[in-house]
């Protein structure tokens, strides 16, 4: 009995320390992000490169998934819902669901699977190879050079891709409605625009920035936790990806709870 209580206590202390360290790292990254002196020529170069890797290279797959979501959720979904009556309410509900839930979730899942996992592995490999020591030897702060630009890019990418996705979902919904059900494009567009509310956009923006911050920060943090052994790379990636999943669920739960309280 004493043993199991001790075990629970140890696990709780360990988890609390882990959470505290992650948040203190998050504060460090945020403070560097807000400091104009951080943005030297080398850091700007990393921001541009990372933006290309995270936001541009993902576009073909992202566009395909978004168009399909638009066709099924907005195009077909709304027209089928019309048959049930309460058209305005149902259109409003579907649009709110798509913009505040589907768009950020699909975007964050794609970014996590593609860029989050890559960043986690990249940093862990750098640690194992001794490349982080190289940075320290030349007085280059890894937080400035490696972490901050990646997190900043993650936030911007989420914001831009969520905006792009919302627009693309609406356009593909309108076009597919016209092609499949013969609904006039201007009628459908008018209905969708009226169903759109400022609060949905505000929630989308908040979720995009928050998710973008954490789905890049957590993999980097766990990458930095790797030791000098090769076997620590898969462990760091596994831990990082698992914690990212927990972070996504937590943010979803918090935003949902906040909305309905």
């Amino acid at each position, binding site marked *: 009995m004493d043993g199991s209580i001790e075990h629970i206590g140890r696990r709780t202390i360990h988890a609390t320390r882990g959470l505290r360290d992650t948040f203190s790292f998050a504060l460090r990254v945020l403070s560097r992000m807000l400091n104009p002196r951080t943005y*030297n*020529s*080398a*850091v700007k*170069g990393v921001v541009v490169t990372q933006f290309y890797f995270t936001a541009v290279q993902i576009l073909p797959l992202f566009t395909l998934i978004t168009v399909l979501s638009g066709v099924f959720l907005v195009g077909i979904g709304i027209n089928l819902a019309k048959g049930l009556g309460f058209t305005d309410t149902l259109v409003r509900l579907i649009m709110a669901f798509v913009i505040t839930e589907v768009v950020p979730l699909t975007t964050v899942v794609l970014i996590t699977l593609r860029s989050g996992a890559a960043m986690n592995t*990249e940093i862990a*490999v*750098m640690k194992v*190879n*001794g*490349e982080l*020591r*190289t*940075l320290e*030897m*030349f*007085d*280059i702060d890894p937080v400035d*050079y490696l972490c901050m630009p990646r997190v900043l890019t993650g936030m911007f990418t989420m914001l831009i891709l969520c905006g792009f996705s919302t627009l693309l979902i609406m356009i593909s919904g309108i076009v597919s409605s016209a092609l499949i059900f013969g609904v006039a494009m201007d009628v459908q567009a008018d209905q969708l625009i009226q169903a759109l509310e400022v609060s949905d956009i505000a929630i989308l923006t908040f979720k995009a920035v928050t998710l973008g911050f954490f789905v890049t920060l957590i993999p980097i943090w766990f990458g930095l936790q790797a030791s000098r052994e090769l076997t620590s790379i898969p462990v760091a990636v596994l831990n990082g990806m698992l914690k990212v999943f927990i972070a996504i669920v937590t943010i979803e739960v918090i935003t949902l709870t906040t909305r309905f309280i």
Partner: protein
Amino acid sequence: MLAQAVDEFAQIHRPAWGIVSPTVPLISNLDNWLNISLIIQYHQNMPKKQAYKLVLDKLERFNLAPIAHLRPSVLGNRERFLVMLLRACAVPDAHLAIDRPFLMLAGENDGSFLMNRLGLIGDLYQECRIFDFSHWKDRYQTGYGT
């Protein structure tokens, strides 16, 4: 013992010091020229184009311009060592520390290659100190001095 000596040297000359060491590798996901320009861009905030020109001029001294856009993984021992040397010299008025060079220059029997190349970039550093095992002292008796 050697590591301690290198640390002491670093303590004295930091931040104007550069190191070439097997434990301080090149950054694998950066091209060779970026490995050198990183130091210049980060500490001097020099624009990328200007830094590129400067680094290319330095690489040209060793006829290494063709490897500028390659990754460190494809380099031979000599090329990798020279890129590391130029990176260490990217620090203004650098005090160079070269840590166990023959571990990086596997296949070199004496210090002639090392001394010759250091001579070619003599204007890029203030001082150079080589840290090596005493039993490899003979390798440095090449007529170039130690």
